[in-house]
């Protein structure tokens, strides 16, 4: 492993970690809304959330470029108010990964929220719990294995994110060149086969580690009632 490769791994972990942390509250809110809400336009919201799953990633990247580029509405807003630009920078890569991970996270979380027995929530209400307290002490703990599964799925998806990232923030070494982009770059240059192998192995190991960690966490949170992610 060369220092550059370590840097690539660290960057990938940073981008994916930030992407998941950023998406977690948004995904949970959307999952809750889709699982429990009854409102006009629910089908449309459902479709919008799932769009990144079915669009070609390059199209998602291009849409991000339109919105967050120097002339895009969101991009101008960020530049004027915060002096921030996402283009060619790692927060942009994190945003691309977050958008791509969102549908997977929402799906897993929604299923686990729908599986929560609402009669238990009712029982908690009659025992004196406010709706917020029911959420904290009954709904969230019961949905936890699914929430963890969603977060891990999102993390794994972010580690593997390629198309939207390279379209939106390009392939800048040390800034947006995550593991998949580095593998792609190495494949363009003759004689880089060993670097490709090493990076590919790292990608496999990271994904496996995420899955094992999630299973372990789900077992802990599901203690006594046997919750599983896998």
């Amino acid at each position, binding site marked *: 492993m060369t220092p550059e490769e370590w840097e690539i791994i660290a960057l990938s972990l940073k981008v994916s970690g930030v992407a998941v942390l950023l998406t977690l509250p948004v995904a949970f809110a959307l999952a809750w809304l889709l699982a429990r809400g009854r409102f006009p336009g629910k089908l449309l919201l459902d479709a919008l959330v799932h769009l990144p799953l079915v669009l070609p990633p390059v199209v998602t990247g291009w849409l991000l470029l339109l919105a967050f580029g120097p002339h895009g509405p969101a991009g101008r807003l960020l530049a004027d108010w915060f002096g921030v630009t996402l283009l060619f920078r790692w927060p942009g890569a994190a945003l691309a990964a977050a958008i791509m991970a969102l549908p997977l996270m929402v799906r897993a979380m929604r299923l686990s929220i729908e599986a929560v027995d609402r009669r238990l929530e009712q*029982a*908690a209400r*009659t025992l*004196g719990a*406010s709706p917020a307290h029911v959420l904290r002490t009954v709904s969230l703990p019961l949905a936890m294995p699914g929430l963890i599964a969603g977060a891990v799925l999102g993390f794994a998806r972010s580690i593997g994110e390629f198309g939207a990232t390279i379209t939106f923030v390009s392939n800048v070494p040390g800034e947006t060149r995550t593991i998949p982009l580095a593998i792609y770059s190495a494949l363009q240059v003759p004689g880089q086969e060993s670097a490709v192998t090493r990076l590919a192995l790292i990608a496999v190991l990271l994904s496996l580690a995420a899955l094992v960690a999630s299973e372990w966490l789900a077992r802990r949170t599901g203690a006594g*009632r046997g919750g599983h992610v896998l």
Partner: protein
Amino acid sequence: MSFEIAVARRLGSAQIALDLRAGPGLTALFGPSGAGKTSILNMVAGLLRPDRGRIAVAGETLFDSAAGIDCPPERRRAGYVFQDARLFPHRRVRDNLLYGWRLAAPAHRWMTLDEATGFLGIAPLLDRWPRTLSGGEAQRVAIGRALLSGPRFLLMDEPLAALDMPRRAEIMAVIARIRDELGLPILYVSHDRAEVDRLASQVVTLG
């Protein structure tokens, strides 16, 4: 009057209506399955909103459509015992029992954990997980959880229905003791004549 209930509610194609005034002791709502007995309990607990009417328990108005009163379930101080015990699967028996007790204002608590476990004979179960309990054990814990939340009245929805015969007799004795020793007004739903004859101070027939 312990229970004053005059409510109407449309559920699908069925119309549920009840006008009831009940004294102290155990009032049985008796009738066939599907007559809306559980819906009545849910309305008293605040889990189902009547289309119109008034619900008062021990002189306190919990719901009154004309006056715009609709007390949320967590403030009605109802001890609701469901047909399926509905214990929280992610909490041990002890934490199930103390769930409502911890939420109750200290002045509203009238039973301690020790008293409840002694009364119901569930002290050996405290560290168990709900999924390891038998039906009768789970129902005792559910009754204890309701009593410990410091309720002003109890709602019981066929609490014996899921139990086998020996367990039934056991839990029925517990309910008779609650009625006689604790003096709480109880609204009790059943479709079993023998159960009602044994327990009820007053019977209201539905359906």
